[in-house]
Structures are given as C-alpha cells and as structure tokens.
C-alpha cells in the first residue's frame, strides 16, 4: 500500500506546500495588484529584518509567540520585582509589532497573542498601498524589492544574526526584570558557547538544558519533543493529527516556541502559547471554563499561582520532589504523560482540588472533556456503586 505514493513523501511535500501558503500573502499580492506600490513602505530596514527572521527556515518560529511589549506589561513586571523601570523604556517608544500595527492603522491585536496580528497580511499590504500609489519609480522597483524580500525569507544565511537594535532593546528590557536576570543569568550565559566562548545568536535546546535538565528531559519524551530526541527536525503543527491553527502550521516546536526566554514569564507559556497552535474544541473551549476564570487572576504574575488552572496545570503538571527544607517544584514537560490512561490525570492533577468520584465522573464524560469541563459532571460511574457495595459486604462480614 505504501509503495506507490508514499515515496513522494507525505511530510516534506505537505510542509513545502504549507510554507509556501504562509508566504503566499505577499505572493498573491504581487500577482493580483502588479502595479501597486503597496509593498514599498513596508520594505524599510526594520521590516526586511522582521520578514526575514520571521519566515526564515532556521529561525525558531517562537517570535510569533513573544508577548508584545506594551507599557502596561513592563510596568506590571517591574513593580512585581520592585525594580526601577529603566529610563529608556518609557521615553523612547520601541518599534514593536504592536506599534507597527498602530502606525499602519491596523487594529491592535490582543497584546498577549501575536497570532492575531499577522505580520505580512494582505489587508496591511493593501492599506498602505493606497497612500503611495502614484510614485511610478517606486512602482517599478516594488516587484524587485518584493522579490528580494521573498528571496531573503528563503535564503537568510544560517549564521546571520538577523537582530537589529530594536530587537536587542526589546529583549534586554524583558530580560532585566526576569527571573533569569535576578539570578545573574546574563546574556552570555546562553549566547556564548560554554567551551569556546563563541557568540551564539540563537541558542538551542542544549543551552536551556545546561540548567533545566529535568524540564528538557521530560519535554523530549512527549509528543512535543520526541522528534528532537530521535534526531528528526522539530515538530510542526502541520504534522499533527489534531486540529491546529492554520496560521501556525509551520511553527517549530522547541523550548522558545512556548517560552519567552527573555521575560521568562510562564503565564504566557501556560495558555497563550498552547492556543497559538491548538484549535481543537477542547482547547478552544478552555476560555469558557471555570478553570479559565481562575487563571484570569494570574495574568499579571510572572508565573501561574497554585490556585489557578491553565492548560499546563493538567498537561504539563507540577510535582514536588525532595524532602524537608529541600522540597522544590518541578514541571513535567512530557505533554503526553497525563493524557492516557485517564486515571493518570485524575491522580496527578484533578485530585489536587476535586474529590475522586467527581474527577472520574468528569474525565470519563467525553462531551464534558470536549467542553473543557464547563459544568459539573452528569455522569455517575457504576464503578463507585460496585466499590461501595463491596465495602459494605466486607464491613458486614467483619462485624458478623
């Protein structure tokens, strides 16, 4: 059955196709409106940088999930750690994606989910186009620049840093209030090879592993990380059998796909990062659940509290290890571990807060799982009646 067609390669072809679709926004534009000068204002240095880093193959796609740098966010985080805000943050507005959106009149997206603001969407290209339509020389150059832009997105050399001053300032600001900075994890801790002291523009999973061994070890055993463990290229949503967001199909799964490594804010990693890719009904219904209501209170924290329930609470659960004064909390990054059999989830996760029967009656109700537990369970498993009857018989015999 596999001989005839699978040689053509399911994955590589599909991938190529999808990555083309992603870039397609600009391609379509050039085909449909060949005379438009639309693209030109976009091709500033910054944008070229952005486009090429955003779409280049070797770039980890995490940039999409990076929380945008709004003033409020900076304020929140810095008060959290009671640190004076660096003078530059307030005074010089940085060229964030959010700000770009403002300038071009594009409606602001939700600050924490970058997926709602596609960088190179058709609408945005079109909008800017109307303003400079008449400059004919630009019209002539536009397709060339556009082609160049596409070419760069394909062929950014592996060693180009692709970082400009804006990105650098943004990352530095995020880092300054992070748990990393306050534990003296400086730029060079990750951006320099430990043996050769050579500069590393985009540190990979090995870099995280030097400190976060347990997290990486467990990550590599789950569906998210198993391809890396087995020496394959990272997982992309296009390979998934579950429904995934169409915009996210080419994103690659590594540490910084979910974690903003500069802010080290795990509130974002606990829900928003998941929803960047996952679009099945269970995932999409999370926001309607009581769990999500609890989580809303955590939005301003650097990491989820002990009383809220996020995606990660159940799918990448915390567990405590060590004894006495040396108890510390680890996160199991094996995202598959608590999925099946379902009793694993019940014991490790649900029963931190819920009674045993309530937990089992909920988790074996497939409709309730789909609805992401938006109501108390209606199921009443017969098992508990059996166990109750068994226990009664046993105590009766004991009494007699």
């Amino acid at each position, binding site marked *: *059955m*596999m001989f005839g067609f*699978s*040689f*053509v390669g*399911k994955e*590589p072809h599909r991938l190529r196709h999808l990555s083309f679709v992603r870039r397609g926004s600009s391609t379509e534009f050039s085909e449909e409106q060949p005379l438009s000068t639309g693209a030109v204002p976009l091709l500033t240095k910054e944008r070229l940088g952005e486009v090429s880093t955003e779409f280049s193959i070797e770039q980890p796609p995490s940039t999409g999930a990076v929380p945008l740098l709004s003033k409020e966010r900076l304020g929140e985080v810095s008060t959290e750690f*009671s*640190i*004076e805000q660096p003078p530059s943050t307030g005074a010089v507005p940085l060229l964030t994606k959010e700000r770009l959106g403002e300038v071009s009149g594009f409606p602001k997206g939700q600050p924490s989910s970058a997926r709602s603001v596609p960088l190179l969407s058709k609408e945005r290209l079109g909008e800017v186009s109307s303003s400079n339509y008449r400059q004919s020389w630009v019209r002539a150059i536009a397709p060339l620049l556009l082609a160049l832009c596409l070419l760069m997105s394909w062929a950014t050399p592996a060693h180009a*840093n692709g*970082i*400009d001053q804006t990105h650098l300032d943004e990352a530095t600001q995020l*880092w*300054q*209030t992070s748990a990393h900075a*306050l534990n*003296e994890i*400086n*730029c*060079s801790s990750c*951006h*320099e090879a430990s043996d050769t002291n050579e500069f590393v523009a985009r540190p990979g999973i090995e870099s995280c592993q030097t400190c976060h061994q347990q997290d990486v070890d467990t990550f590599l*055993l789950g569906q998210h990380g*198993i*391809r890396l*463990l*087995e*020496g394959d290229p990272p997982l992309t949503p296009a*390979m998934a059998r579950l429904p995934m967001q169409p915009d996210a199909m080419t994103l690659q799964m590594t540490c910084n796909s979910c974690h903003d490594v500069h802010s080290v804010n795990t509130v974002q990693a606990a829900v928003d990062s998941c929803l960047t890719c996952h679009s099945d009904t269970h995932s999409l219904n999370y926001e309607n659940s009581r769990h999500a209501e609890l989580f809303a209170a955590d939005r301003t924290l650097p990491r989820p*509290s*002990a*009383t809220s*329930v996020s995606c990660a*609470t159940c799918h990448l659960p*915390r567990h405590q290890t060590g004894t006495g004064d040396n108890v510390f*909390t680890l*996160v199991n990054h*094996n995202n598959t*571990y608590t999925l099946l*059999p*379902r*009793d*694993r989830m019940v*014991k490790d996760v649900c*029963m*931190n*807060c*819920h*009674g*045993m*029967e*309530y937990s089992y009656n909920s988790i*074996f109700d497939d409709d309730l799982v789909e609805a992401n537990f938006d109501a*108390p369970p209606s199921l009443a498993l017969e*098992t508990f009646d*059996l*166990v109750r009857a*068994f*226990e009664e018989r046993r105590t009766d015999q004991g009494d007699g």
Partner: protein
Amino acid sequence: MALRGETLKWRSLFSLKTAIAVVCIALVGWFGAAFALDHKQVFLPGETSVGHYLFETSCASCHEGFKPVSNETCMRCHEAEMAEDKHGAAKFRDPRWAGELAKIEALTCTTCHNEHVHMFGRGVHLQPDLCMNCHQGIIEGDLKSHDGFAADGCWTAGCHNYHDHRSISTGFLIENLDQPPMLPVQQLPDRTLPAKVETAPAPDLRQEFLGGGA
C-alpha cells in the same frame, strides 16, 4: 524450427526477462533512492500508532537491524509509565503467578504492544479481551461483583490500568469514596523562584548581537 525458436526467444526475452529486469532495477533504485533521500516512509509496513507516528521514519529509534524490538528500547522513553508496573517481572517471579507466563508472555512489551499493526487503544494490538488469558474466572463467578461483565471491557472501559494500579485499584477507590466535589484544600504545587540579586546586572553582551565583535 530454429529460426522460429529464435524469434520466439527474442520475443519472450523482451516481454518477460527484460520486464523483470526493468522492474527489479526500478524497485532497487526506488528503495535505494528512498533510503538515500531519507524518505523512509516507503519502508513502513503499515500505519504507525498515534504515540509513535511523529518519528516513524526514524527506524533506528526502535530497530537494530532486523532484531526483534527489545524491552530496553521501549524503556528508553517509557520508564515513567512503568515506574510501578503491577504486571512486571517481580510479579511473575512469584511462584504463584510464574505459571501464567505460559498463557501469555507478559514480560515482553511487544507481546501486547506491537507496532505498524491495528491498535485497539493505548498502543495495544491484542484483542481487547486479552485479560481473559489469565482472569477469565473474574467474570465467571470468582468475583461476585463482576459476574457477567463483558470480557473486552476491563481496560477499554477505563476501569483497569494493566501496568499501574496506584489510582484505580479497589483500595484507592475505597479510600477516596464520598469525597466532596471540591476538596477542603484546593492547592496545586506552588512554584517560587528566589532572586539572588535585587536588580538586574548590566547586560554583558551587546555589539555581538548586532554583528560586531566584543
């Protein structure tokens, strides 16, 4: 006769031997190219299970040449799931249960968990009534509460976990019966990170990021 034979030979050569040779060369080329170009999907004998399909072209992850897949291979990844294996070697070393191994070779992962074949769930390819190899009595009078239960429901209905009884044994259920929907204390493990310093140190790299030297 000779002439006619020659003509026939030539024709049969063309239609059969050449065809076979061409097909062989094509197949060898096909597989060789598939191997060389890393399109190893062609070698898959069937559909890969949901747990393993993401690395199904990484043959060496499980296979060492054509040797049977060993338990050690499985345990590279599944150690956590097997931490408290209730049907592990310890159980079958006990003389009371050792004889059961004649009914089903329960100490080899692949006895129940084959790959590239049809699965009934949880990566199990054996018929769902596999428990009946040893536990037929349970549904036939040995355990009153289970009289008349379906032979294929033990694990497919979610009630029993072959490897791990920690959260679904009778003892565990009895211990936790009649709990309220919300436990009195609802508390997940907290995670606090101490800070070594109060303010961030100065960033120790800068020009490097912009392409300049130190």
